């Protein structure tokens, strides 16, 4: 029985985050949890090992960039997938350069997100 993929959903929008966690958790091989801010995400990533972190670009407090920098400092092995409602190419490139696996534009279907999570995990295994 393959170990479930552990996903952390980081977004300050409660409804979106809760829905996302619920929908992902319903998938056979995914275990999902939520964090309402970058700071909480960093704390949680310190305590548990996640395979994939879904990170929203626009958050108050610790920004996506800031969160990624902190995760890098901690040598967090999770693959980060950026989820955003806004398509700034500069943001995307910056975050990719910081090590994000990919970038998805809202709205997107849960199916597409699950696919991306699966690819991110494959990527992780190879590297």
């Amino acid at each position, binding site marked *: 029985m393959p170990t479930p993929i552990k996903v952390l959903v980081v977004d300050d929008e409660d409804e979106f985050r809760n829905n996302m966690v619920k929908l992902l958790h319903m998938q056979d091989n995914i275990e999902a949890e939520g964090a309402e801010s970058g700071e909480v995400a960093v704390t949680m990533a310190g305590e548990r090992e996640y395979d994939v972190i879904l990170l929203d670009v626009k958050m108050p407090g610790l920004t996506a960039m800031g969160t990624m920098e902190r995760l890098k400092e901690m040598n967090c092995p999770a693959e980060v997938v950026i989820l955003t409602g806004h*398509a700034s190419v500069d943001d995307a490139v910056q975050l990719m350069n910081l090590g994000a696996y990919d970038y998805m*534009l*809202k709205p997107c279907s849960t199916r597409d997100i699950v696919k991306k999570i699966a690819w991110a995990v494959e990527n992780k295994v190879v590297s």
Partner: protein
Amino acid sequence: MQGDQPNTHVPTWLAWVLPLAVPIAAVLAGPWTATVAALAASAAAFSVVFALGRALERARDRAVSIQDQLIQSQKMASIGQLASGIAHEVNTPLMVIGQDVELLEMVLAAGNMPEKMHAEAESCLEGIRRQVDRCGEITHKLLGFARKSDTVAQRIDANALVEDMVMLVEREAKRQGIVMQREYGQVPEVDTDPPLLRQIILNLLNNAAQAVGRDGVVRVSTRNASGRLEIAVQDTGPGIEPEVMDRLFDPFFTTKPPGQGTGLGLSTSLYIANRLGGTITAANAPNGGALFTVRLPLDAAAPAAAKAA
């Protein structure tokens, strides 16, 4: 307005010389000659003033229409910003709606609803999901539209660039019996952003072919019009209705049925043209079809006024 000198028929120096000519003639010649000279001078002065007046009017009209284009492009820039702001905000609620639909579908699948109600509920959810996707496409297009990258100037052969796009459209157009006609003028190399110009030309050609539909002609011509590159796309379609003329370049304006085409093509093209320092104008051709004309500076460094937008 840079570069827009009134185009007088009579040189201005004549307007100065003529009044002097009268007293000189009067002094040199007899009284009869003086009268003729005076009449001639008045006539000349009159025509100078008249020509100047007409030329000023023409220059003002041109200035007004260029001003319109500048206003349009400034409008576009702020619409672009507003639109991307809205799109950004709307994308998250759209996502949440989509998620709720997915959750509802699962509740439905698990529940024990009578067959007909189940089918009804399914179809409604499917409908909501379709509309959410449609909104998503619109916001994604808006965000693409507002994305601003610097224009990069390169020296290119405009005729070759236009011909590339014509050949691309020709492949499909031929199948509909549409003939692509070319009339390439002697045009010097132009300093412009090639991929952006390709977008404009491809958009205009595509519109022209769609306007024609079947069995018609799309004519592309280029020429050097007093130091500006002019690319004209004319078609034998139904032409542009007068009520539509003013709104043609407005974002989201489209004459296609709902769901088909976003109406961003022409507004994007105009926006790009302005950023390249040029304009696009629309008119009805003498034969009844539409005529779109792109005018660009030959040298990217020239009109800075439009680029500031």
